[in-house]
């Protein structure tokens, strides 16, 4: 333990084969096997998958293509479009290949459910809780799907596009009554 910090001049001790086109090859392999759509934008490769395929694809990616690291997991809301309404976005990284890959899973408004990837990368646990908290997307099979950032009794999911930013509505003559009633109720009924 007392040894001097070992320093690395090389890029990475774990990198065994660095091919600049590794992500393209991997994406092609996944497209052929699972029929996923492949998009390229600004040098980033993304695969579009159906929720049903997700479990199998991520297992393949981890075990065969060494994507050992889930870098980020988030979602995006395309409201008022409803089918699909959300995209769940996974950013994967492979330490051995030094390459990144993006997975996008479209989810409908009616039943926003995606299988969990917690069993593949444990780090997904909190990321999925955050997406559930912010978007109301349920992760099937998740061990601990509670809110994480918002208070436990919060209603609604704030990062949905139809969720308002939460400013106070200005009171004009045309909506005077409307707001007055609401103010009243807030003050007396809930107390």
């Amino acid at each position, binding site marked *: 333990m007392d040894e001097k910090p070992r320093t690395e001049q090389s890029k990475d001790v774990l990198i065994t084969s660095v091919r600049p086109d590794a992500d393209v090859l991997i994406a092609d392999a996944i497209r052929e096997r699972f029929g996923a759509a492949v998009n390229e934008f600004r040098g980033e490769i993304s695969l579009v998958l159906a929720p049903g395929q997700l479990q199998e694809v991520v297992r393949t990616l981890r075990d065969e293509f060494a994507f050992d690291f889930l870098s980020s997991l988030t979602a995006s809301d395309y409201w008022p479009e409803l089918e699909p309404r959300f995209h769940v976005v996974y950013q994967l990284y492979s330490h051995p290949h030094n390459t990144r890959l993006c997975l996008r899973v479209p989810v409908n408004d009616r039943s926003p459910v995606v299988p969990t990837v917690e069993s593949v990368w444990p780090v997904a646990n909190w990321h999925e809780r955050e997406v559930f908290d912010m978007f109301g997307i349920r992760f099937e099979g998740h061990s601990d799907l509670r809110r994480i950032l918002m208070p436990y009794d919060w209603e609604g999911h704030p990062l949905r596009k139809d969720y308002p930013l939460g400013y106070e*509505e200005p009171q004009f003559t045309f909506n005077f009554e409307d707001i007055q009633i609401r103010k009243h109720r807030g003050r007396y009924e809930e107390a």
Partner: protein
Amino acid sequence: MKKPNTVESYLRHTKMFTQTEVSFDELRHLVSDRALTGETVLLNMGPQHPSTHGVLRLLLELDGETVINCIPDIGFLHTGIEKNMEAKTYLKAEVMTDRMDYLNTVGNNLVYCLAIEKLAELDVPPRAQGVRLILVELQRIASHLVWLGTHALDLAAMSLFLYCFREREMILNILEMCSGQRMMTTYIRPGGLWRDTPVEFEDAVRQFLRLFPPRIDQYEAMLTKNPIFMDRTKKIGVIAAEEAVKWGLTGPSLRASGVAYDLRKVSPYLGYEQYEFDVPVLQGGDVYARYQVRMEEMRQSVRIIQQALDKLPYGPVRSENRKYVPPPRSELSTSMEAVIHHFKLWTEGFLLPEGAVYVPVESPRGELGCYLESDGGPKPHRVHFRTPSFVHLQALPLLSKGHLVADLVAIIGSVDIVLGDADR
């Protein structure tokens, strides 16, 4: 479909799954059976606790003084930055990025600007790149100094705190010199910098570089061979390389476990590939190894700044692409085009092409990633920050299992969390 304008009307018009009550049953699966019989004690630590480095609440299940389970509870500093950014133009939204990780403000600006530049394919002049790199590395040292001071303070080494903040002050003075602000600088802008550095910048940085390396030796003299410090940190909070990767650790915490993953090396940005520096990697995986890695990182940062300052070219600090970068003030009185660009940029803001990018950078704590999605309009459609503190907190139960409560304090300090970074 019309967007409801208040939260209340939204809730009246939508019927969605909501969770309204939480009881002990909700947490039942997270604690052991012994908690039910009263054999172990459930104890709250935080959210107002000096050693949790911010508003972090830990629900501890204790057997005597040994931690059986640790359930982190975050969100006390949640300010809805991602939601707010969706309602602002790209330039205005940048101000909020400073407020996330308040020890790495320049780095937060950087990752956001890099994402915009990648999406817009915007060029950045070499001088701006150099100044950005110097400031980011200075900020890394400043962040490590705060970490070192508070970490040592948790372990009862009080005097170090004062020394660390003395040196940090020099860095904050440099930031103030450049941007007028000590912490929330917003100095890095899409396409370059807000303005060029003042003339005294170079001397100030050189003076810091002259003074600082001997000071690191002083800190090390106080801690590295200190028997109390070694007893408190060695073999505490050990995590193996494979586990660390699985649980998403990055940055110094990962490198202390033996994985040489540094984004400055594996996917260089800002021209890091031009500079010579080493990435310290240790095998211990404990609190002491994390300490050693960070101390060495400060030395390496000094090396990088030295080289960057020697190479720093003269020239413009902002891109000439007027669709994204405002024209200089002097042009406004002579060029009609400049007036139009200025007006467009300060009213509507710039439009980014439709698409999504993910840009990771190496923050002092680990991988800081920005997922930026544009729908072609002047405001971001979705911004998400993958913050290292959020991910590292998740590994806290794993690190602290079986240790004493006093060691838990050392472990929290060693993963270097910032709650503003975790909650956003």
